[in-house]
């Protein structure tokens, strides 16, 4: 844990960028493969991640330190250390099974619900540790908003869906609930579409609308960070576009951490991008740099779709 912190601070500038031609692929595409970092990870090592210095300039809202996670015996996250900057959109990208969703779910401790999960290391949300024994997981989750892959509105009215987090806190005043509902529906850019049918079931909406209801639900209690777990993977392109616009809008007020499979999406909506592979952080930096001038050949190939 300590070693990785040190390395992060020292290595970002002097990490060698090797682009030698190793061997010709027998698939004949003339592809260059010298994935030193990836090969090391495949061998089971945990190489030091390449972190761009810009990340350290920003103030961190989530500070992950040497975080490891096991599902029973198999380790899903290996010694990840990263800081999520405040007031920006940070994207987690990487091929399937790279642990990006698991990392996201570790932040609001949704993984507690899975039998046999064990963690090491620390995560701090606004400087308060979230894995300390005295932390009340319920009140922790209230500080974070979460949106899932598949839109999951509850089988109740749109209004009740949005104010659910307030309801469970015992808020009964109608005026407060209505005001909060309208505010977050407006913030989720769906107020005009649903304002006349707030009492109707949320299940009658389209997938994209449902997902925006879920976003409204996630932000109604003013979370410190909004966690988005592949929020567009179950949506069509038009709905995806709307959600992306919404994310850009919301990021003016909230810190957003988004997991995505879609490289273009990461490029479009995020300010920072972290590339993960097999549970390790590989490269982390400003999105523009990561997509245009990445330090690692692996990252370049991954974001351009040549690998992964």
């Amino acid at each position, binding site marked *: 844990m300590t070693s990785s912190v040190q390395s992060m601070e020292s290595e970002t500038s002097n990490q060698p960028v090797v682009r030698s031609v190793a061997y010709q692929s027998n698939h004949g595409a003339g592809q260059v493969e010298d994935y030193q970092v990836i090969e090391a990870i495949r061998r089971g090592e945990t190489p030091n991640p390449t972190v761009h210095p810009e990340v350290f300039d920003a103030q961190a809202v989530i500070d992950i330190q040497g975080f490891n996670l096991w599902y029973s015996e198999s380790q899903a996250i290996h010694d990840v250390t990263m800081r999520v900057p405040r007031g920006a959109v940070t994207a987690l990208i990487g091929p399937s099974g790279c642990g990006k969703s698991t990392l996201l779910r570790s932040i609001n401790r949704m993984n507690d619900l899975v039998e046999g999960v064990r*963690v090491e290391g620390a995560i701090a949300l606004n400087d308060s540790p979230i894995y300390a024994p*005295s932390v009340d997981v319920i009140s922790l989750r209230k500080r974070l908003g979460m949106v*899932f892959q598949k839109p999951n509105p509850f089988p*109740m009215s749109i209004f009740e869906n949005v104010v659910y987090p307030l309801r*469970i806190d015992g808020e009964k005043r109608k005026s407060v609930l209505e005001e909060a509902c309208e505010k977050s529906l407006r913030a989720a850019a769906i107020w005009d579409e649903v304002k006349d049918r707030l009492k109707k*079931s949320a299940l009658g909406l389209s997938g994209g609308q449902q997902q925006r209801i879920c976003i409204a*639900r996630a932000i109604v*209690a003013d979370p410190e960070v909004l966690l988005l777990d592949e929020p567009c993977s179950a949506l069509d392109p038009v709905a995806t576009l709307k959600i992306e616009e919404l994310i850009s809008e919301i990021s003016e007020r909230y810190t957003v951490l988004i997991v995505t499979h879609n490289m273009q999406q990461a490029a479009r909506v995020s300010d920072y991008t972290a590339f993960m592979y097999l549970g390790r952080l590989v490269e982390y930096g400003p999105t523009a740099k990561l997509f245009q001038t990445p330090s690692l050949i692996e990252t370049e190939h991954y974001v351009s779709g040549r690998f992964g």
Partner: protein
Amino acid sequence: MSESERACCHESATRRRTLPSAIGEPMVWLTGGALVVCLTMIAVLMTMVVVSGSKSFWPGPIERVTLTDGEVLLGIATEHEAQTQETAKRTLYRVGNRDIGQESFRWVDDAQIASIETPDDAVMLEREAWGVWFGVPESIERKAGDGEITVLARGGDEVFEAFDALHADARRTMAQVKRMKKRELGSINAEIDRLRLDVRQGEIELARGDEGLFRFSWVIWIGLGIVAAGLIGLVYRLRSYGTELGSANARRGSVIRASGTIGVVMLILAMWIAGPWKGQGVSASELEALRETVAQREAELLSEYDEVLGRIRAIESKDHEFRLVVVEPTSGHFAPVSQTLSDEPMYMSQVVRLVRANTLSTGEKIGVYFSRWWEYLSTNPREANTEGGVYPVIVGTVILTLLLTIFVTPMGVVAALYLREYAKQGLMTSVIRIAVNNLAGVPSIVYGVFGLGFFCYTVGGYVDTGAAESARLSSAAWWAMFVFAGLMLMLGFAAKLWSKPDPGKSASGLNVWMQRASWLVWGVVLVLVVVLVTKTPYFHGFFEARAHDGTPTFGTRGMLWASLTLALLTLPVVIVATEEAIAAVPGSMREGSYGCGASKWQTMRRIVLPGAMPGILTGAILAMARGAGEVAPLMLVGAVKLNQDLPISTQAPFIHADRSFMHLGFHIFDLGFQSPDSQAARPMVWTTTLLFLAIVFALNLAAIMIRSRLRAKMAGPTV
């Protein structure tokens, strides 16, 4: 792949022909045919029940049959039988008139019939007792108090006219008399009973004396009260202790709070059990005084009883003045009041209905039909259940079904919630699930035996008289056990707290052992509680006096135990249905709720339970349907052939859960196989079956309507 290989493959890959077994056409016929067979059987069953059940009240023509040997009989043809090897072609006549010593049904060979006519003045007389009477109405007379007889009407039409004028009044009077007997005399009798039981209770308590059981003195009791109040205050002050600290402290805080609460509860319990005001018993002088007041009141009541009885007799004797003479053609006998008074004609008030079947228009026949149905649904049974109504039977069935649903649904739902949501899924839960499923396959009579042995005799006996004398613990042993149980409870709670690992950590050895220890301790506590309750020397039952008189209240078959037995019988249905419904609530919903910061219970209450509610109600409906149709266990735990005292009434305590009851299922069995007059009972079997079906359908329909309303409220269109 080379050119030649490709060619070769192409050549060899000629299409294989379709196998005959791939042709699915016969399967369409087979499956469709099976469905048709099922539907036909259901349709036949339903038609049979509906047709046979609904025709039994239709007034058929009364035939006057003259046999070849000159005998004349009057009756209704109820059945025709084709020629068999043993018997000729024959007809079954309902001839009634049991009073004159004949069977009420009679087979007549068609060959012996000389002539059949349907005389206009033939009537079927439905009476309060002794079944129907066929005959010709002759007159209506009035017998004055001095024995003088005046004829009010004579012959056919005149009699009917007079009958119509007098009958309604006579019936009203009779209903009034019945009501007076039941309400006024009944309540006097009940009070006398109560008074006698009071005295009996006093005698028992005097004989028992002060048994030398431990009791607090007033001083100590008040001191304990102060301690309890102080403890409550302390627990309240500590309500947030440890919640801000690390996990070890959090646990310590929880243990202190929980132990304090357990201590307070146990202390209050002890103060209640061994309160200084208890166990004084009744002194000899008090009993004497009680006896005196009771004797006084009893005398009052008895004179009141005589007074009411006198009023009843007066009304009756006035009522008995009017008599209807209906003469049977062959013997010339008229329908008598009763067998002991065979030379007195029928009292008007004893006539339920006078049906002049042969001259009725269709409209009048429909009127008779529906008045019979109304009588059937709204009155008590007569004549060994073959006549009259089934009102108490309907009430018994409906209340039993509702009670069992009320018992089984919360019990099953809560059990299933724990099993699916809280319990750690593993070997134990699998074993429990298998056991529950197997419970559904246990023959229902086994539940009956269990209900009789456990509920009626064991639990009921305990409720009546407390623990048996020989089973009581000494008070020292009991209190030692009481304190030990309290300590174990605290210990178990602490062990359970330390069995949970810290967040993000896997369970340590200590956690695992604490888990096992907590299970062990819970087991010990359970055993202790059972022993404490069943062997307490401080409880003598709620109905001691009655039990000592040999008439147990709850220690015998009754509504409460029957509904609990059926609840147990249908429990697996509810548990399985609820579990499935809960499991069918998508995980994404739960995750969404947890993600919003909801606790487990909030998620269950706001997301899981509402989502599972239609499924849970389906389970409740299935349980209800199953329970409503059960008969076998009821025969052991409470259904009886005849009990006109309903399980609910307007007299305190309004719900008489200790009473035995009548049940439609058992009633059908009783009519079909236990009736002394099986021919008369047969149409009633069908009618009762039809009614039973209708009631079960109605109950189900009501439940289904509630469910669909709920469903519409819960969720919009499903995506």
